[in-house]
């Protein structure tokens, strides 16, 4: 029991991201409104970002900006003092990508709305079937 508890406590961050991700995925699959789907998509992407960022965390470390006038001659920089910068870099990219996707998705949603005057998927499909 203790073992299990420890497992959960030590890794709760992953559970959170998985929960978030599944919320997003569910919205993507099950929601009828296109904008809600897009929101779900964004939650989904954000969950992945959270996952990555949480990889970078180190206990007792600070942000990865080396102090100014760091005296390198006397003291080597210890990597353990700074959090892992790589996931942050990657997630900057991923954030930008998700923004770009969001932009294109919204543009297309506007086109869809303009064409069918609704954002409810079942109504749109009904219109398509009837035409």
């Amino acid at each position, binding site marked *: 029991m203790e073992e299990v508890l420890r*497992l959960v406590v*030590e*890794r*709760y*961050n*992953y*559970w959170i991201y*998985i*929960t978030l*991700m*599944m919320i997003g*995925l*569910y919205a993507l*699959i*099950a929601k009828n409104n296109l904008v809600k789907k897009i929101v779900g998509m964004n939650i989904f992407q954000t969950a992945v970002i959270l996952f990555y960022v*949480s*990889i*970078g*965390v*180190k*206990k*007792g*470390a600070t*942000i*990865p*900006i*080396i*102090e*100014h006038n*760091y005296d*390198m001659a006397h003291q*080597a*920089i210890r*990597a*353990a003092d*700074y959090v*892992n*910068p*790589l*996931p*942050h*870099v*990657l997630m*900057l*990219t991923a954030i*930008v*990508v998700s*923004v*770009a*996707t969001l*932009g*294109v998705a*919204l*543009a*297309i949603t*506007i*086109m869809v709305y*303009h064409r069918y005057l609704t954002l409810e998927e079942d109504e749109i499909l009904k219109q398509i079937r009837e035409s």
Partner: protein
Amino acid sequence: MKNLGLLIVVLVGAVLIYATTDFPPFGDPESPASLHVSPRYLENSLEETAVPNVVTSVLVDYRGLDTMFETTVVFAAGVACFLLLRVPRRRTPAPRQYRHRLTGLTFRIKDGGEISLPLQEFEPMESIWTPHDFIIEKVCCYLIPFIQLFGLFVIAHGHHSPGGGFQGGVILGASIILLSLSHDLRTALKRMGEKTSALFSTFGVLIYAGTGALCLLLGYNFLDYQALDPLLPGGPVMARYHGILLVEVGVGMAVMGTMIWIFRNLASRGRHEEGL
């Protein structure tokens, strides 16, 4: 659909959770991710690129290619929104409305007619239009310059503090977007036209890719800012430092231009009318 979605979600979630048991604990400084590649960035960044902000140096230098494509993604999104939404202006005879600048009186001209009054006193307007709120207008007028200044600072100071081209570019873009929100789209367009924002976005990416290509021309690898040494003061390490700055400016331009571009096309469904 709902049940299917639930089923899929539960299944996928279960698989993902199943794997977490083998993950290193949260915040473990001994995790492989903290031990394998990243230490070098932390330990050598200052020495190799003279940039204290390791995120910046990794972003723009060590993994500069990713960032170049990332900027390209933004650019592509801008072009995509333009391609999909922008309605080309067509000269079809239709009723038009004009507002007298000084008095605020509005005129309606029937199908394609012309006004005989001096044109510079009038401005065209659309039917969807809301009057401006004086307080918001003024407050934003004072805010915007400071926002822009801050944006420039974030770009320029990205080497030493959190920030950089993306963040600064977004802030700059937001200032123009705030202008369109507080006033109207046309006012903002007058300050920064569609062509300007599009070219900003294009040339921003071009600065990035061009810097890379310049390195190539100077006989080094693509994006190896060391190549800029002969052009910039301070030796090869500082060449990297300056190269990063150059690229950050490009990123800032691209992001700012694209944000504004996308916003306008989304907000007005590509018509660029006065209202939003």
